[in-house]
């Protein structure tokens, strides 16, 4: 307020100078913005358009020119029996892992807003799954899920679930492999979602929470009637980020299962890599990847709508 008053109280000469500055800002602003926008158009916008064009072409890694062939590339992409599996898995992995993330991250965010000894260290431990490059954490999981030396096998033997000398081949059968991938995705995205929810939790005005305290509202009532409704938009943002990072991820599949058993754990993103880079068929690979586009576009639209709504509020 005081800043506004100050500006209003300024002599007219200074206000005129301000207007002059404003005129220059019209030139300066776009000039400062332009390099970044041009760079992003070159390394994101142009390739994005190319990716869609590729899906309608017959381009391979050896091609020099882009030759459009219409829908036939899409048809051959869909006719591949792995495509259906990959499409299903993309949705399955994302839906299940992000459902787990929503619940766990909200609880974890509440834990992290409490005061307790060693909180700094706890926060460090919780951040590890997100900050570690995904390729490296997938290597750790690969060892942790080793069919012979896995500590989980040892635990199951100790609990008499497995007979001594028994093994669970964690990445062998399709169901177990799928569960392992989902567990790794949940584990990896949890810290990011938690940080976003925490940011939202810290922005709930303390007087609202204090007021309910005075009312004698108990922890659960306060959580469900005050905190969660206020947090809902932030949790939505956290989920959107989680979906984007899971739906479009290929590193976890590539390292943990390589798509095996068979191609039972392929997702669109990993299948696009195997077709496009390993197989050299850029067109079909791009067609596989482009199937992610509508989902991502819808997510971006929700983010935009959300941004506009928070602007009104």
């Amino acid at each position, binding site marked *: 307020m005081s800043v506004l008053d100050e500006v209003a109280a300024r002599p007219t000469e200074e206000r005129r100078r*301000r207007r002059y500055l404003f005129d*220059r*800002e019209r030139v*300066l*602003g776009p000039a*400062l*913005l332009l*390099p*970044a*926008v041009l760079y*992003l158009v070159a*390394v*994101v916008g142009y*390739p*994005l358009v190319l*990716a869609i064009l590729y899906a309608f072409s017959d381009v391979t*890694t050896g091609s020099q020119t882009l030759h459009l062939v219409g829908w036939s590339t899409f048809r051959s992409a869909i006719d591949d029996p792995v495509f259906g599996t990959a499409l299903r898995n993309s949705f399955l992995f994302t839906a299940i892992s992000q459902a787990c993330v929503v619940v*766990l991250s909200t609880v974890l965010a509440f*834990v992290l807003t409490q005061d307790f000894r060693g909180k*700094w260290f*706890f*926060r460090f*431990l*919780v*951040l*590890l799954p997100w*900050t*570690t*490059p*995904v390729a*490296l954490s*997938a*290597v*750790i999981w690969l*060892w942790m899920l080793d069919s*012979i030396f896995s*500590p989980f096998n*040892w635990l199951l033997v100790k609990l008499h679930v497995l007979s001594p000398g028994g*093994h669970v081949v964690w990445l062998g059968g399709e169901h177990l492999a799928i569960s392992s991938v989902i567990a790794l995705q949940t*584990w990896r995205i*949890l810290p990011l979602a938690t940080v976003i929810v*925490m*940011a939202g939790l810290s922005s709930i005005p303390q007087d609202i929470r204090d007021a309910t305290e005075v009312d004698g509202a108990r922890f659960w009532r306060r959580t469900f009637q005050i905190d969660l409704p206020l947090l809902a938009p932030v949790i939505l943002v956290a989920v959107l980020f989680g979906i984007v990072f899971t*739906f*479009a*991820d290929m590193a976890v599949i*590539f*390292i943990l299962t390589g798509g095996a058993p068979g191609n039972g754990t392929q997702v669109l*993103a990993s299948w*696009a*890599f195997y077709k*496009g*880079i390993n197989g050299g068929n*850029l067109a079909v690979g791009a067609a596989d*990847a482009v199937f992610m586009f509508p989902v*991502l576009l819808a997510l971006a639209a929700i*983010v*935009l709508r959300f*941004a506009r709504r928070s*602007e009104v509020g």
Partner: protein
Amino acid sequence: MAAVIERRVSGRVGLWVLIVLFGLFCAFPFLFATITMFKQNTDVYTRPNGNQLIFTKAPTLSNLTLLFHHTQYGTFVVNNVVIGVCVVAITLALSLPAAYSLARAAGWWAEKVGIGVFVVYLVPPTLLFLPLSQLVTRFGLQDSIWSLVVVYPSFTVPLSTWLLMGFFKSIPREIEEQAQVDGYSRLGAVVRAVLPLALPGIFTVVVFTFTLTMQDFIYALSFVSSSSNMTVSVGVPTNLIRGDVFYWQALMASAIVVAVPVALLYNLFLDKFIQGFTMGAVKG
């Protein structure tokens, strides 16, 4: 009164149960990896279904020696550092002016462009890597770390611009106006008066840009083929696991050596990150 105390105590116990459970869930793989990296071969490979979390032989540092002296891991790390430094430079050069412009501009377009920049961050690399691999080849950058230096700003610039925009918005306009009254040009005022105040924000962006470049997998996997040009993320899973006859202890070491410092840096800058992230969304 007793009931209140009882509820407090049970709440406290519940909190610690959650802390232990979440701590185990998030950190167990790293605990397991850390124990493994100090183990001798006979301690690991001769006990199927044994308790791998305890040492039955004396701990050893030989796995780290193996990793750094007998594999190309050192080269991967150096590549990551070179790429990281170059990408940080490009990112700052592009996003500092852009963020300042977006934070100070008053037009309706500024907000739209700001959100647009943010949405670019949501375009995943898996949608872009195929055309980019062709473009990289066309520009003669295939199988070189420079292809990654050129492409990584595609995700570091949007995030950095958004964060810096938040930091700039928190600096009052009067700062550069006063500097202009003192005789500086507009840009001079920004460099001399605004940038020093934005320094903590800039430092945060440097940290996050650098660590973000270490996260990438698919670009490095698609563009680079010879091991001497690989980054840690690609070199470890493709070159060390499949290339040589290899030991899990050294592999675990390769992950822990990177994971721990990065997590420490994040933890240190997390509050600043949240601050910038949420302030970008506040109207200036």
